[in-house]
């Protein structure tokens, strides 16, 4: 039985058409995977279904009768919940308060805290997240746990249609498993689930039906049994393969560009030693919380190296971030919105932010070298934009990431650190980024890639170091990068 039918939905912004007449029927108890590159129109479509945006043309029917949502609250009233990637939690309130905010249980006009905590604990148990303490302050939780709290809040309102945008992006493997169990249970109870994801294997294993959007058009609707990763990539991009690793025999230059010797930060990381050769791409794999980001921070000088040594091209590393930058270590951080871009400034401004000091004359910016850098990286990295003065915040995620990579490369670093370089980036841009990484390595740059995606490590890395709870447990060659072996090592200290 269908809950919602959307037909011929069109939407354009300032003359730019984002949806060209998309139609979709959602049945009760169905799990639909919504796939597509960034900019394909997934979010716009979901915003229309949930009432946040009104369509320019097209009809939405709920239970067979036409509806016109004027705002998101109309969508909520109709039982449609849309959980976006950007979380909307109150960081200084407790988990229980966040889950039931807006419908706090009351007794004689006061909040009934006993009922509140019991109710919140029940909901957390329902979504398979009973390990989260209902009294904890939300701001102190890991990102993945916050994501689960957000989901619990939506579930507490018993939605008929639950739409989730990349809900698993920060969850650990164990949490993902628990969470999938929950999704199957609510679907069995009659809730329709729409699941937006970039992780194709998750979509294939969880969903009843896969829907692919490309440039605002619904291009494919498939049963997971008749789809493969490869066929889905073709559906999404119109191209065949994402990226194939190519071995280079000239990598082993035997010149150590980066040496980490018995390094500890006095907190999570302990006694880490490895070497990366010049021109090599070295991967860092591990579960969430294994210390990948912390290790990169230590290498680039943002985190103190309490014991041990970090040597760059044979010289002892400096003590702060600027010293490391001078020694030729650049980083593209995880979470580009928070740590990376300058959102109120132009693409040109963002690109040159890393290099001003090097090209400046007596403290004055050299405009010609700014323009030069801009033109060079715009073509070399394939940054798609209208013009260099466009605000960087208006670019797509993949293009923002390329701008950040450009900013790191402008300095001509010997060592480039990339932390989750393709997090939240569409498939096309992902392939571009892999190509850039391999090309830079071929020019003799040393690259360290921290990633939680096994496919990504296998596509770009020559070797991989596997971290487990702050320790380096194994270093594998490309031939040894078997999925099971990598996961076994990653779990070894858990």
């Amino acid at each position, binding site marked *: 039985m269908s809950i919602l039918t959307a037909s011929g939905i069109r939407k354009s912004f300032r003359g730019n058409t984002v949806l060209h007449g998309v139609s979709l029927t959602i049945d009760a108890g169905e799990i639909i995977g919504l796939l597509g590159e960034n900019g394909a129109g997934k979010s716009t479509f979901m915003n229309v279904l949930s009432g946040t945006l009104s369509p320019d043309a097209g009809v939405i029917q709920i239970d067979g009768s036409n509806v016109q949502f004027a705002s998101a609250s109309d969508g909520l009233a109709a039982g449609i919940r849309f959980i976006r990637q950007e979380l909307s939690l109150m960081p200084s309130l407790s988990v229980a308060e966040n889950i039931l905010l807006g419908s706090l249980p009351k007794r004689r006009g006061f909040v009934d805290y006993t009922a509140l905590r019991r109710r919140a604990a029940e909901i957390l148990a329902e979504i398979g997240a009973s390990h989260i303490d209902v009294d904890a302050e939300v701001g102190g939780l890991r990102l993945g746990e916050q994501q689960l709290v957000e989901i619990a809040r939506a579930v507490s309102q018993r939605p008929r249609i639950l739409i989730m945008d990349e809900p698993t992006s920060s969850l650990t493997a164990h949490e993902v498993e628990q969470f999938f169990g929950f999704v199957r249970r609510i679907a069995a109870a009659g809730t329709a689930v729409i699941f937006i994801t970039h992780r194709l294997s998750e979509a294939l294993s969880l969903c009843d039906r896969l829907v692919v959007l490309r440039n605002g058009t619904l291009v494919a609707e498939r049963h997971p049994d008749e789809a493969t990763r490869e066929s889905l990539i073709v559906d999404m991009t119109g191209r065949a393969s994402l990226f194939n690793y190519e071995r280079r025999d000239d990598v082993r230059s035997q010149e150590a560009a980066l040496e980490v010797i018995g390094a500890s930060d006095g907190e999570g990381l302990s006694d880490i030693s490895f070497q990366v050769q010049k021109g090599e791409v070295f991967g860092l794999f591990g579960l969430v919380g294994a210390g990948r980001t912390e290790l990169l921070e230590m290498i680039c000088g943002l985190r103190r190296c309490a014991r041990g040594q970090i040597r760059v091209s044979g010289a002892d590393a400096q003590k702060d*971030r600027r010293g490391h*930058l001078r020694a030729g270590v650049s980083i593209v951080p995880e979470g580009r919105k928070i*740590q*990376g871009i*300058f959102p109120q400034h132009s693409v040109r*401004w963002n690109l040159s932010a*890393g290099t*001003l*000091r090097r090209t400046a004359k007596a403290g*004055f910016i050299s405009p010609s070298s700014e323009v030069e850098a801009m033109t060079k990286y715009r073509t070399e990295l394939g940054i798609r934009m209208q013009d260099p003065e466009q605000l960087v915040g208006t670019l797509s995620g993949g293009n923002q990431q390329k701008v950040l990579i450009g900013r790191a490369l402008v300095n001509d670093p010997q060592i480039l650190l990339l932390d989750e370089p393709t997090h939240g980036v569409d498939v096309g841009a992902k392939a571009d980024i892999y190509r850039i990484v391999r090309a830079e390595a071929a020019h003799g740059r040393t690259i360290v890639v921290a990633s939680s995606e096994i496919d990504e490590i296998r596509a770009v890395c020559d070797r991989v170091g596997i971290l487990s709870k702050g320790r380096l447990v194994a270093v594998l060659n490309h031939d040894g990068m078997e999925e099971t072996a990598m996961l076994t090592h990653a779990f070894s200290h858990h």
Partner: protein
Amino acid sequence: MLLRLRSTFVTALGLREASVAAMILIVAAYLTYASAYFPEPRNLLNIGRQASVVGIVALGQALVIIARGIDLSVGSIIGLSAVAGAIVARETGVQGLSVPVALVAGLLCGLFNGWLYTRLRINPFIATLGTLSIARGIALLLTGGIPVTLSGFANFLGAGRIVNIPVSLILMVMLAVIFHILATRTVRGRDIFAIGDNPKAAVLAGIDLRGTRLFVFVLSGLLAGLGGIILAGNLASADPNLGMGYELDVIAAVILGGTSLSGGRGSIPGVMLGAILMALLNNAFVLLGISAYWQVVTKGLVILLAVGLDSIRRDASETD
């Protein structure tokens, strides 16, 4: 033609600056019609002199706010540095000392603010609120609450004229040009915008967060010291209550000029226009003979109008 003229006007100035400039033109047009005295050069230069202290102090404040800080202590620094300059001049008998002493006093106050913020990690709102009270208290203690007379070079800065143009106005224009170049053409200027827009990204890009923050607070203190000695020089007397409430006019001028209170956005020409608009309003009330109390209300309304229009427009562009 008119449309093209309008659009070049807007691009040259930026939207917010253009709306402040339009407000200035409207007020000026009305005053020309309402008062025969308004368009006389003597009055116009007088407005310029009145704008100069707010304008000079606002230059430093603008950089602080662009870097995501705020300096509430400028009004008190004005008072303290004027008093310090006047007392040293009186005690030593060397009137020429008043200006350098005032500048050093302002600089030290700025250094103190910067130290509280960057070393003790006190939020700048709280840190400068503390300095606001401490600096005013010291000014009162030094003088026992009684104004100190002042003459010499400070007088020239505050009340002097070169070819009939007030010295303080010339000083403001020169400083504005220097600060505009600092903000747009130098690495330090870029750093200030960068740490205001996204401090974490700025650190990763190798920008010295502490040093840049310290720099803007020191500059703000230094300029408040200069403002203080100009103001005292104009009155030929350093009152320990000098500059009380000035922080509001200064911050208002900065915000009117299109600077974002959440950092990362702003321009020096805009801030200058903001300072001129504030001085023009003061002048209007005097010329039209309206109660000074209304003036206080109107200043508030003008700020709400300018900033309100801006955020309504921004909301509209965000929702579509």
